[in-house]
């Protein structure tokens, strides 16, 4: 089984983002960038499938600027076999990303695509589902557990209210949730080995799909800031404050 894993380069999850004073976006200058945390989980899952003998090849793909190559390298150091960088300096919306990925799927013919549940920059939570629709493939979103049996995949999903299990006919799309696995750190020898792995470079134009944005950003603003309140001495004071505030 061949597995395709799309990874996105995003602002590191530990960075406190700042909105630009001109309200055009957030300040990305000199900010630490990393692989989207959900995509680390996808890569880990794909690599585990390979280690278990279920997957034969793990192909990593990223759409983004030249530096997204570093993100692909990280995935290769975790155990991916080769990479594809679709280079662009434009912001590509989830619909555009899904259209490009659909073309990559046509070329690569994977049996499974493991996508992150959401990118922590745009918080869209769309790309995997859109890709599934464009390909007419079944989807198992917010995956908590995966099990392959024959030509199908049993996916346990994290849903409001608990867990839901669905069975998908392969080929299929999975989007991963936080508790699917705990991603590994790449070892130094594997980081060295990853430097020799192949990364093909492409441009959106090579795929002949229209990825022009459908949404115009009117403005980006700071959310209302919450003022810190007061520290209370003890439980009795807390109770009386809450009573005064009328919440208990």
């Amino acid at each position, binding site marked *: 089984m061949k597995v395709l894993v799309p990874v996105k380069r995003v602002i590191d*999850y530990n960075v*406190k*983002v700042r*909105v630009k004073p001109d309200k055009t976006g*957030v300040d990305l200058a000199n900010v630490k960038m990393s692989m989207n945390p959900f995509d680390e989980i996808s890569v880990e899952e794909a690599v585990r499938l390979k280690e278990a003998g279920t997957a034969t090849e793990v192909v990593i793909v990223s759409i983004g600027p030249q530096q997204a190559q570093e993100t692909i390298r990280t995935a290769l150091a975790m155990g991916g076999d080769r990479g594809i960088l679709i280079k662009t300096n434009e912001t590509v*919306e*989830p*619909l555009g990303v899904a259209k490009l990925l659909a073309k990559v799927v046509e070329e690569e013919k994977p049996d499974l695509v493991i996508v992150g*549940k*959401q990118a*922590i920059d745009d*918080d*869209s*939570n*769309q*790309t*995997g*589902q*859109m*890709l*599934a*629709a464009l390909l007419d493939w*079944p*989807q*198992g*979103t*917010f995956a908590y557990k995966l099990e392959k049996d024959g030509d199908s995949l*049993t996916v346990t*999903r*994290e*849903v*409001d*209210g*608990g*867990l*839901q*299990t*669905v069975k*998908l006919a392969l080929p299929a799309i999975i989007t991963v949730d936080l*508790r699917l696995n705990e991603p590994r750190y790449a070892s130094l020898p594997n980081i060295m080995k990853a430097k020799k792995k192949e990364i093909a470079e492409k441009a959106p134009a090579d795929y002949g799909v229209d990825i022009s944005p*459908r*949404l*115009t950003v*009117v*403005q*980006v603003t*700071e*959310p209302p800031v*919450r003022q*810190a*309140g*007061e*520290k*209370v001495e003890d*439980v009795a004071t*807390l*109770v009386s404050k*809450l009573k005064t505030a009328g*919440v*208990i």
Partner: protein
Amino acid sequence: MAVLVIAEHDGASLADATNKVVTAAAKLGGDVDILVAGEGAGDVAAAAAKVSGVRKVLHADGATVGKQLAEAMEALVVPLMAGYDAVLLAATTTGKNMAPRIAAKLDVMQISEITGVIDADTFERPIYAGNAMMTVKSSDAKKVITVRGTSFEAAGNDGSAAVESVAAPAGPFKSEFVSEEMVKSDRPELAGAKRVVSGGRALGSAEKFQEVIFPLADKLGAAVGASRAAVDAGYAPNDYQVGQTGKIVAPELYVAIGISGAIQHLAGMKDSKVIVAINKDEEAPIFQVADYGLVADLFVAVPELTSAL
């Protein structure tokens, strides 16, 4: 202008989230219809007909849409969209699962988790875990939108719309429901609760979580939440997670116990009206958003608080 709202329900009752989505839908202007898809969900359709301001209810009854899986819902909704300018869904796991599938089939860019409607094309939504708010204008002819429930009041229930049947799609589909394990609880539902008590990693075990958090929640009539760390460690079920990638809550009272206040957690609760934090580290970031902070060992302070109420 006609707007379709896809009902959120469990087969038996209509979720309050639907009433909130109707409020957002009404802000686009035009007629609002509700689609109820399910198997034997006649009661839900009847409840949807009572939601204030709704023109009519479309009821699709059939086994293929019994669990509202995305593949079947796509097949149901996409053809219906010929008669609508926009479709709105609650930003719940069910809504998030199917909405992008419908959007891609209509070749439109979905607008996720809106918190405000500026006009029929322009919407406000949080990005970067709520650390920035973005206003976007859509150039797509049809809109596919998911709605953050905490940002909209629920529409009332004094309507009397007609219920019309629509055919459920014929299967089979490439996905199939196998089973579900739902967390049973008599406590209020987290997303809509007026009070929430959440526990973090500091609780240390599932036993302690139950021993310390539940009695306080019960005294307050509160829903129970948790940080990701507490869920990951197995102290609480996944359904309890509050935050960027869990549930978004905005109760009148939020009590954070043994939670440090990482931005991903704050993203899910910082719109609460009154926030109480109990943490033994006076430097914990949670205190920066708390109205009332108590620096104390939770294992002492929480039982004391529970008995003082």
